[in-house]
């Protein structure tokens, strides 16, 4: 049996050693983590228009992703009224943090991809899935109406069901060519519907067994795109 004093000293020493060593490791690796995160985010944004890119996004290296992003993408930051804000780089905006701010103070990132033939407008959206947050990037053509591609991600939707919004290329492919305005020029977004598409221009087929995640995508598209509308309007009128 060890004395109480021994146990106390042992515990304190152990805690100190472990925490100091861990702190050193975490601080030392932080630059590498941040660089990785940035590349991952940029790859994710570009994946919304992966069919329009001059290269195969999955086979290019991290370095090439960065140079492609820097060369082709113009970043614009919008405030809650859809007005461009100076001095804030779009890629530094963390949608998760913006969500916690009051609505009027939120900032929204916008990435303008200038391709050889056409320009695409990529916007970030965020919403709720079944278990946790879901988010995505929506790419619009320069008519600000036709969807050129989407990419979705999630914290922890069910694998094989809700997670299909990210994993299934067929689900994402459905969005290509859909319109977010109807013929009367009203914003209607694109809805994910179950059983029978009635308006093929504005609806895509839901994932079987993932009703709540699918509804979450519908809601996210509607609320997420809405904040960018004033910007789209101002661009269209030019």
């Amino acid at each position, binding site marked *: 049996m060890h004395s109480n004093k021994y146990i106390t000293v042992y*515990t304190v020493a152990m*805690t100190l050693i472990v925490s100091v060593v861990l702190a050193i490791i975490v601080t030392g*690796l932080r630059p590498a983590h941040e660089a990785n995160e940035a590349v991952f985010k940029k790859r994710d944004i570009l994946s919304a228009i992966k069919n329009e890119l001059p290269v195969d996004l999955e086979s290019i290296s991290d370095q090439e992703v960065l140079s492609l992003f820097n060369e082709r993408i113009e970043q614009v930051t919008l405030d809650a009224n859809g007005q461009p804000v100076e001095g804030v780089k779009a890629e530094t905006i963390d949608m998760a943090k913006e969500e916690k701010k009051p609505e009027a103070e939120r900032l929204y990132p916008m990435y303008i991809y200038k391709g050889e033939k056409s320009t695409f407008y990529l916007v970030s959206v965020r919403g709720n899935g079944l278990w946790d947050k879901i988010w995505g990037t929506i790419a619009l053509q320069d008519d600000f109406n036709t969807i050129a591609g989407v990419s979705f991600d999630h914290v922890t939707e069910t694998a094989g069901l809700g997670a299909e919004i990210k994993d299934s290329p067929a689900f994402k492919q459905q969005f290509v060519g859909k319109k977010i305005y109807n013929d009367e020029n009203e914003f209607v977004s694109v809805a994910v519907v179950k059983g029978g598409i009635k308006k093929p221009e504005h609806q895509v087929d839901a994932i079987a067994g993932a009703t709540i995640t699918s509804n979450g995508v519908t809601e996210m598209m509607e609320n997420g795109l809405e904040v960018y509308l004033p910007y789209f309007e101002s661009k269209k009128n030019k």
Partner: protein
Amino acid sequence: MAEVETKVAQEKEPLFGKKERQLIIDPLNDNNPITVQVLGICSALAVTTLVKPAIIMALSATFVIAFANLTISLLRKGIPKQIRMIVQLVVIAFLVTVVEQVLKAANYPIWKQLSVYIGLIITNCIVMGRLEAFAMANKPWRSFLDGLGNGAGYGIILIIVAAARELFGKGSLMGFNIIGNSSQYLIDTTTNSFFSWYMPNNVMVLPAAALFVIGVIIWVQRARNQKLIDVS
């Protein structure tokens, strides 16, 4: 005098004697942590849809088990009995955090894919089980080998299960497309008349399939290994 004698006897222990080899080989078959001791099942369900993450998980778990065993064995005489489990947990948690941080810096997509499961190595019963059953009572070198053996025994099952699930569920291995319904695959079921009946089995992607595969492995292993056949 007696003390000196035992010390000499200890130093003569070979680095890779029969017993040491046994420590590595036993957990691979006769005493496998998953198929015989039935420990660590939940991570075997969760991270075995693809081979690559399964390999990373196997390596991470082996690293953690081996070095936790080594550390605890080195400290075993100084650890106060009353708080030994807490000390073990701190050592495990420390090593897991190191693995997670290094993996996040070295291969971010894999880290993202494994996400919480790396952290869950802490709760993997194999690690704690080996510390309590072996490292607390054995010398550092043997404890280290025991950790390597058990990690490898756990990892080999993980990789077999992942290979079966990825091949039959997604038609690929290590991300290399083998069989499927487009020209991207080695065997294209739309043009190859011999395999035209083939379809990937989506059940294999779901966690439940891991249990079926583990069940089959246990069955095959028990049928072939005389030591494991229950005579009663």
